[in-house]
């Protein structure tokens, strides 16, 4: 349970860790757009290299990215089957049982796989290098201009930060209850279907009860301290935008921009070179 890799903050002190969360959030957004728009082999190359560089800089191990991808294997297989059945363009690679498999089916599957892995990697870079609280402050700060149109930026940020705060607590709680029920002879891995259902019920009901209990306690504690969502609040730690944040954001936007260019005008590099010569 504690080996959960995706979405976990890893306390190193790297360049990426020190960046302003807002820069990282905008950067993530830009890269995600670049990843999911059409692109060429050049674009893939550039983005993959950049993703690997980011992982290296954040000291995220490739193994942990691989682990977070594990649940997606089944989906990839599913996609592959569909692509093979439905995509009928490009050259015919080979024919089995009178059914031809086209080149584009394979290419499309690989490209979706690459995009998903990059998405997971880049999101992992953000969550591994940014404390959940900083992340919500960043979001709140980015959304605060929308307060003019009555967008509840603070309330949403508070809700998210509470939710994030309780993820480890709930995981711990789950582990505790699992152990308690395991001591009573529950086996979550083996057994018949109805035994498995009882096992899950014996886990979920106590978890629900303690979550409700916790949320009530938290609500009371907040009320006891006079929490008022619309009250004006100061903060001990302020987010400071520094020059290196601007620099990092420019680099990310350039990379995303170049990839987009590759996608939109596949020949732009040639044209620029021709123009230069």
């Amino acid at each position, binding site marked *: 349970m504690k080996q959960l890799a995706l979405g976990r903050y890893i306390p190193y002190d790297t360049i990426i860790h020190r960046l302003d969360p807002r820069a990282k959030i905008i950067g993530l957004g830009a890269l995600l757009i670049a990843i999911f728009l059409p692109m060429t082999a050049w674009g893939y190359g550039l983005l993959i290299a950049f993703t690997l560089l980011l992982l290296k800089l954040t000291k995220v191990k490739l193994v942990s990215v691989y682990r977070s991808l594990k649940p997606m294997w089944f989906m990839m297989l599913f996609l592959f089957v569909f692509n093979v059945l439905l995509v009928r363009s490009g050259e015919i690679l080979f024919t089995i049982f009178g059914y031809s498999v086209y080149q584009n089916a394979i290419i499309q599957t690989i490209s979706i796989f690459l995009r998903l892995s990059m998405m997971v990697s880049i999101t992992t870079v953000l969550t591994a290098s940014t404390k959940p609280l900083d992340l919500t402050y960043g979001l709140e700060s980015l959304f605060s201009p929308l307060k003019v149109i009555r967008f509840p930026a603070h309330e949403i940020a508070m809700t998210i930060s509470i939710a994030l705060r309780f993820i480890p607590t709930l995981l711990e*709680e789950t582990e505790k209850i699992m152990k308690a029920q395991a001591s*009573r002879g529950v086996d979550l891995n083996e057994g018949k279907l109805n035994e498995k259902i009882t096992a899950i019920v014996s886990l979920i009901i106590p978890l629900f009860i303690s979550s409700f209990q916790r949320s009530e306690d938290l609500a009371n504690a907040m009320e006891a301290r006079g929490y008022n969502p619309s009250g004006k609040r100061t903060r001990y730690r302020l987010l400071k935008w520094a020059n290196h944040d601007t620099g990092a954001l420019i680099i990310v936007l350039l990379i995303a921009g170049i990839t987009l260019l590759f996608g939109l005008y596949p020949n732009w590099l040639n044209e620029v070179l021709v123009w230069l010569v």
Partner: protein
Amino acid sequence: MSVIFKAVTYTYLPKTPYEHQALRDINLTLDQGKFIAIIGHTGSGKSTLVQHINALLTPSTGEVQVDDFVIHANDKPKGLKKLRKKAGMVFQFPEYQLFEETVYKDIMFGPKNFKEDTKTIDEKIHSIIQLVGLDESFLERSPFELSGGQKRRVAIAGILAMEPDILILDEPTAGLDPRGASEMMQLFQRLNRLGKTIILVTHEMDYVLQYCDEAIVLKDGQVAKQASPAEVFSDESLLQAMSIEAPDCLRFAKKLQKAGLSLDLSLIRNTESLAEAILQAKGVQR
């Protein structure tokens, strides 16, 4: 049915920035039929240690032996259900494990998992509910409408219904009122006299002195001392190092001893036995 730890170490989250070695080179023998206390600071490895006894955790290195079950480091042990029936574990705040509609069904849950016959369980439940100090009218009630202390009794009844030979208790009295707590301790003493080995993790030194045969002191994941409670509480330098305070009655007796009264400290377990010892020292006949 003794429990033997051989050079056991346990590391949480190895090879991550959160790596933490909770147990270092533990060598211990916990004898059958004894009432054993495990004491030490928060984070000294008490809970980690006891979770090895029913294989909720398996050692990173070394081995744990419970009767004829041997659990080596890094192997996926089989037949864990038998071990878990043999060594019943009551966690801190065990009321969290209740989930059935009625107290009856919840107590039945453990034995049922161990494939016991419904009729035998039914017979057991009626005696166990009284053993934990509740009456049969509770059986048809929902566990969620009970008070905190009652819930805990039900949770403990659920473990007792499995008829474990070893009962592991992780701070079973935390959050109970003094009367409920001492009733709980008397229950464990009765069970111990019925032949069950009791392993108690606790911060309550009064209970250690009053009820336990043996105390194991843990410090930074190592065994600092294994001896009788009287001996542990007379080791001044250890108490100081662990910032543990000996129970009041024992400290009072020590003061009396210093003042010239000859008392046998090993006989003092609570206020009553202290009074007894004073009377005896004074030569008063009752």
